[in-house]
């Protein structure tokens, strides 16, 4: 397994006080693990420290996702296009999955954090 995803999963386990087996790349950070705002803040600070990158909390945690989707509707453009602009670290298939998954709750997955970190460190 990629050492970055392992490091991210370890950090999540420590901050959220969950067991290793509960955290996989496809695990939902908020929906499955119950992360709260304060946990996300600590996660951002720790990831920033570990990978020596500047992190935008708004971007890495997809905080404005639903606002962007509404914005796309208002501007009569495709949500996929706008999300690809706003979140360049997400691939097209992930964006499609996110749009199909919105009604189930917060969509952020562990793999999204990895994609953000990898884009920043590339």
């Amino acid at each position, binding site marked *: 397994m990629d050492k970055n995803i392992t490091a991210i999963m370890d950090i999540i386990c420590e901050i959220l006080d969950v067991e290793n087996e509960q955290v996989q790349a496809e695990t939902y950070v908020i929906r499955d693990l119950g992360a709260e*705002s*304060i946990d996300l*803040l*600590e996660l951002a*600070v*720790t990831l920033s*420290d570990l990978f020596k990158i500047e992190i935008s909390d708004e971007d890495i945690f997809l905080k404005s996702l639903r606002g962007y989707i509404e914005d796309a509707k208002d501007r009569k453009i495709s949500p996929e296009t706008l999300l690809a602009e706003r979140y360049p670290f997400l691939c097209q298939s992930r964006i499609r999955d996110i749009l199909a998954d919105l009604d189930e709750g917060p969509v952020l997955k562990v793999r999204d954090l990895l994609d953000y970190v990898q884009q920043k460190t590339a």
Partner: protein
Amino acid sequence: MKLEFSGKRALVLGGSCKTGCVLAQRMKDNGIFPLLSYKSCAGRKRLEETFGCNPAGMDIFPLDFSRTQAALSMLEKKISTRIDYLVDFAQGDYESFVASANDDAVRSYFNDNITFRALAVKRISRAMLRQKKGKLIFISSIAAKRPNPGQGFYAAAKLASEAMYKNTGLELGAKGITTLVLRPGYIASGRGKAFLENKGHTIRKQIPTGQVLEPGQVADAVMFFLSDHAGQFNAAQITLDSGFSAGKK
């Protein structure tokens, strides 16, 4: 009671004021390394007159809130090493009736004293979050409670900053970071000294104990609230004015 401190390094914003200097000495005496920021040449001069040039056991550095990017870079450099405490004395001076204020002066005053402070508190609290421990004390003023002609902008900046600090304590308390707002009354130093020389007699008559504050008394209070004994104070506001602002007048 001998105060105990688990922290070793303290950032003191606006540390060149008289009370900041006294506090820095108290910190040194208690094994805490103070990092004192100053805004102007006058501030640096005051620090050098008090502690000498390049004093041992402390760090002195410029931090002009009006030069946002340079000040943030300097701040980030200073907090890249562990900071256990923050004491924030920094406050610009702008006295004017609200109705006669200069538009540009209002914008820049709020930019320096509210916006920059928010950016600084964000960075400092994030640094403390990494170490899961930290204590922040904002030195406000009783002017935040008692409106005074000409002090509308000063009071507004203090109240806005108080809110930021209190919120930070609420938001990060679970992660070991606590905040406190201290509202001192009239202090016989700095801008308070000149005011008291003119109106001290009248002011003292309004203070139940008849005494204004000395810088050392404020520094002692700050040291107590920084100490391990005051761990349960969080997102709170304490008035330190001998009862001056407690009554109707």
